């Protein structure tokens, strides 16, 4: 078990723009860190640098207090699960899992014991003699996990391990990975572009964009207090609604209660999550407006009911910017209806329009 620490890590491919710039963070021993961001943001490059599959151009990576910049992948005491699983097609499931142990000259009886243990945990016992091509996607994924756990490494690295599975299996495997990591107490670093996976797995979430870190923190903190507009829109589905506010100018028609917000001279972006736009259902008493709350008059133009909740899409003042609201239960408003939505002042997010950074409330 070990802590993984990155200090001012950067990667520049020869004659090209930096892929990763000045990344510093530390994953505590036994922590589950998720690197998340859109494709091309450098998260996989960063993971591969930690694994030793890419050279480190700048900065230092250390695993368990040992700088590993010049250490071969096999000597870093890590195990990696690849997106395409990278199972050895000519070996049985047993041999796939035993390969790493055999390379390290582990005695055969111990190999057998460790593989049996991993197969038991991952429910792979009936398949040990099969070749990877005879397995389903989920089973291959579990073999890849098994190959990682038999080695008892200090760190698990996951490179989008669930992206080749269908949605249902992905959900199930996500839970299994988290359980397994808790059970083994191994430090894990996990790369994904799926914000749901990121939110559910991480103790520590690192949001990356264009080679730099946007924000680091626990998932709920990032959700509740996103540091930048990028994080605000990347974390959460459907994404946060954003509307521009200019200082001094009148707010767009249909928007009330924004006059008291501390809008900087360059302007601001007001963010409201869809679930924080509350509308009164028929027969319910109207939601009372408190000082500092923001009111929006939205004319509904599309309704998506998914059973437990309903997504209402509407335009501000009938013609303005489009907003999405997320309401509990069924809320089948006919298109064309105009309703008043209220966002509580504690649920408002304000960002500087020039820098994209969060403006903290002064109260």
């Amino acid at each position, binding site marked *: 078990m070990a802590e993984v620490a990155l200090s001012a890590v950067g990667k520049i491919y020869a004659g090209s723009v930096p892929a990763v710039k000045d990344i510093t963070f530390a994953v505590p021993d036994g922590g589950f860190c998720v690197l998340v961001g859109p494709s091309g943001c450098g998260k996989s490059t960063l993971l591969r640098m930690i694994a030793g599959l890419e050279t480190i151009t700048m900065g230092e990576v250390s695993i368990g207090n040992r700088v590993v910049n010049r250490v071969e992948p096999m000597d870093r005491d890590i*195990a990696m699960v*690849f997106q395409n699983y*990278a199972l*050895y097609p000519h070996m049985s499931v047993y041999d796939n899992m035993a390969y790493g142990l055999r*390379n390290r000259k582990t005695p055969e009886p111990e190999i057998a014991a460790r593989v049996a243990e991993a197969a038991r945990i991952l429910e792979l016992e009936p398949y040990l003699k099969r070749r990877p091509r005879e397995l389903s996607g989920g089973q291959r994924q579990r073999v890849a996990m098994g190959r990682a756990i038999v080695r008892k490494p200090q760190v698990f690295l996951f490179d989008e391990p669930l992206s080749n599975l269908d949605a249902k299996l992905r959900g199930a495997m996500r839970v299994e990975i988290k359980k397994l990591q808790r059970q083994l107490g191994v430090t894990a670093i996990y790369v994904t572009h799926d914000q749901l996976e990121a939110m559910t797995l991480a103790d520590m979430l690192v949001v990356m964009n264009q080679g730099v870190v946007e924000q680091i923190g626990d998932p709920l903190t990032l959700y509740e207090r996103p540091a930048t507009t990028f994080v605000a829109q990347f974390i959460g589905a459907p994404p946060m609604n954003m509307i521009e506010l200019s200082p001094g100018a009148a707010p767009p028609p249909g928007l009330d209660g924004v006059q008291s917000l501390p809008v900087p001279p360059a302007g601001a972006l007001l963010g409201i999550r869809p679930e924080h736009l509350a509308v009164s259902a028929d027969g319910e008493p109207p939601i009372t407006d408190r000082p500092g709350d923001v009111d929006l008059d939205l004319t509904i133009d599309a309704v998506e009911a998914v059973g437990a909740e309903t997504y209402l899409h509407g335009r501000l003042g009938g013609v303005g910017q489009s907003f999405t609201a997320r309401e509990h239960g069924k809320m089948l408003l006919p298109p064309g209806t105009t309703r008043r939505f209220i966002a509580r002042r504690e649920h408002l997010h304000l960002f500087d329009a020039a820098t994209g950074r969060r403006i903290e409330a002064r109260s």
Partner: protein
Amino acid sequence: MEKRSYFAGRLLPYALLAPQLLVTIIFFYVPAVQAVYQSFLLQDAFGISTQFVWFENYQLLFADHAYYQAMSVTAVFSILVTALALSIALLLAVQADKNLKGAGVYKTLLIWPYAVAPVVAGVLWLFMFQPSLGTLARGLHELDVDWNPYLNSGDALTLVVLAAAWKQISYNFLFFLAGLQAIPKSLIEAAAIDGAQPMRRFWTIIFPLLSPTAFYLLTVNIVYVFFDTFGIIHAVTNGGPAGATTTLVYKVFNDGRAGGDLGGSAAQSVILMAIVIGLTAFQFRFIERKVNY
């Protein structure tokens, strides 16, 4: 699921197959049948009288010491050429697969020998190793090596083996390189993380995954050394000295064309055909089983 097209008419599939079948029939089956028929005939040197003699040609062949010599020369020659051509090509392909500077030029240059006609290849190697004029032969003499492929049967065999292998390396190289490039990079990375040193990675991961390619090349190379090396031998040694480089296919030519023994030559080519068919069948039956996926 495999995609398949279905044709409405019954004639169209046959029509589409016809050109290939025609070529095979005219240039393979007809000559093969003719050779079998010819091998039962005895002709005088001027082609005036022909006699049907059943298996006499075969009986004479198996009583001939020179025929057994040709068989053993062929065995040594084919094992050496195949082993050399495959192993050197594999080594070169592994190097070319790395991210070398100028890998493109390197690949192109390696492919060229395949475009050289066998006889020309033979002449080139002969030039280099001709005992009195050849540059490399002189170098060998200066190193006190008593090199003379015209007189020394070992030297002659070495020379034709080198020339024949050199020409086949290009073809093998191309296939090995394609095979290597088809191996997903993540497998190699996984093996590196799994603690396999480069040599071990090669023998436990890369080579097994290349085995279908290697098997295919083995079959092609065997056929190559048995039949297509004729031109090289003809240009370099004429089968000499004293039959030291006379392989089965060269003997077919020599006895039939130069010796005028058409029946005996036909009998030899029938036997040669049987050997190659047998070897290929053996490879498919036994070696292919050990080949992965």
